[in-house]
């Protein structure tokens, strides 16, 4: 498993690039342990309900129906670990979940998790997208899903090539449908 732990300098630079605060790179090592249950990842930090809510939210932010929960959970797990040692982050997550539920209650008289229609959930999330809570989750997910070498084959992306001699002898000019 590729170790994607980053130095703080890189972390900072990414944050600047993305114009928001709080992006961290997910540690993906947990995937290989097989011990993960989909909703338990963040229970220690935000409780079972919060944990399940954040997972639902994560799947709505970058919805890839064929990607297993573990990939989304693996982005959020290190966030929960971090939150246990960082009261501000813990508060951000807990209050974010609370606000999600409040907004869902106001609009649909149900908690976010109980909104069965994706457009309803998206409606609630859109209204919160400028918040630092939302952007924190989104930023971590962008790195954890699309910058995750383990997932690149699923998207048909090749990643690093120089060590394989590039693509000059591996089909750079092949296309059969033109």
């Amino acid at each position, binding site marked *: 498993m590729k170790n994607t732990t*980053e*130095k703080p*300098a*890189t*972390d*900072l*630079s*990414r944050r*600047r*690039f*993305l*114009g*928001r605060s709080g992006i961290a790179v997910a540690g993906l090592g947990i995937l290989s342990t097989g011990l993960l249950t989909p909703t338990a990842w963040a229970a220690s930090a935000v409780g079972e309900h919060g944990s399940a809510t954040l997972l639902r939210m994560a799947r*709505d*932010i*970058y*919805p*890839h129906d064929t990607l297993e929960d573990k990939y989304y959970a693996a982005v959020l797990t290190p966030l929960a670990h971090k939150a246990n040692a960082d009261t501000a982050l813990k508060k951000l997550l807990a209050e974010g979940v609370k606000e999600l539920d409040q907004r869902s209650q106001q609009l649909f008289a149900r908690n976010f998790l109980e909104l069965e229609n*994706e457009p309803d959930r*998206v409606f609630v999330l859109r209204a919160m*997208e*400028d918040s630092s809570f939302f*952007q924190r989750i*989104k930023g971590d997910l*962008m*790195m954890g*899903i*699309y*910058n995750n070498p383990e997932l*690149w084959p699923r*998207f*048909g*992306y*090749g*990643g*690093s*090539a*120089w060590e394989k*001699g*590039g*693509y*000059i002898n*591996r*089909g*750079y*000019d*092949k*296309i059969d*449908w*033109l």
Partner: protein
Amino acid sequence: MTTQFDLNDDSLVVIVGSGAGGGTLANELAQKGIRSVVLEAGKRFKLDDIENDEWKMFGKISWLDKRYVEGPARLAKDFPNLPAWIVKGVGGATVHWAGVAMRFQEHEFRMRTENGTIPGANVLDWPITLKELEPYYYKAEQKMGVCGTEATGMPFHGKSSHYKVVEEGARRIGAKCEQATLAINTEIRDGRPACQVNGFCMQGCRIGAKWSTMYTEIPKAEATGLVEVRPQSMALRIEHDKSGKVTGVLYADKDGNHHFQKARLVSVAANSIESPRLLLNSASAMFPDGLANGSGQVGQNYMTHTTAGVYAEFEKPVHMYKSTVVPGVVHEWKDNDPSRGHYAGYELEILHLGLPFMSAFLNPGKSGWGRELADSLANYDKMAGFWVCGEDMPVESNNITLHPTEKDQYGLPVPVVYKTDHINDTRMRNHAYDKSTELLEAVGAKKVNYLPPYPASHNMGTNRMSKYARDGVVNGWGQSHEIKNLFVSDGSQFTTSGTENPTLTIVALAIRQADYIAEQMKQGAI
């Protein structure tokens, strides 16, 4: 190899920056026997430091010092602290570039004469012509190893799958499309290997097939024993004497200690944000508005090219990443034909991003999430598309200024970059969106995505060349109108942006400038 010059040696040329302009100038001068010190704000990287990893390289080499983007353009909202995507390191922006090396067209040196006054724009003719620059373009192409040119005789790279899709679309709508003239070896040349199509040209070529001053001009210059490169040396201020001639550069080393390097001549080549910033920061009682700024044009007319992205999703795989980053260019609309509804021209540069950057740029900013975006990213392997690169109108109010209160880690006022579209830029971009859509749909695109401009790698115009001192900062040699021994050697001297990527022109100008400096020094004029 490790030449060291004395701080009090006032016979030296001091060059601020080691990229296309500064790195080339240092080597050209050294080959003529002229000694220089190159002050480079960033670190020295090795080829081993270059990885095929978009985010890692972004974090490693980018210029990330504090800056502000202002103006109503979306860029200011999406990237409030990152106006430009350039490099802090030996080699400068020649580390991060796709290798596209095209000459300006003849008319692009005289856009004021071509089009007359364009309201709201500050267009001026260059004080030089294509004819004057042609011999230097040839030398630059030889130096950099540009494939597909007479200067090198190197063949093109061959047509990648990404290229073939666009070529077929272009054929179907009758648009001109050609393989790109790239400063990337297709044969072993100048001690560097041939391209093996890693697909990561832009962020630093791992094998050194792409030209960068980092491993060409700089080591060649150092090998003469006449050049000392001082990495992690941030220029703070240029000083001058009572007669108004510059005397040297004050800089901070990696530990923050200040040194003053004396100079016979100073060349500023720190890219179009830092170069004017340095001149503005060098204001004195004699030059209260900054050095070389009698015209008030230092920092003004900031241009980035009119840019956008266009990515189509097809039914079947393209695998665009298996290609040089820019395998080809659609040239159909590069001319100046106002009947299209806009002045000046643009190129559609076939260009790929990896999945990590595509996820960040397909819909950048806070709203970039949700099923539509995810569905498009799920089609990553079926994408093909362009980066639009068009001439940008010089607008005086697009500029670099100094923050009134906030200072950076060197104690210098943070630069504030104001940039927004001239109406011509907007019209051009919309034309490019329409034409790319037509082209991509002609070859079967199911969906076409429009990407807004992202942080600029082409930065130009903030110390522009002009015939008359009242209109600009430097003359046709990049020499300050006001201070004879102060030169500008980077893209900030561009009078207008042209349609083409700036690096080849910066290198050609630096070669030409070196001839001039050598001649002037010989005559004792400077």
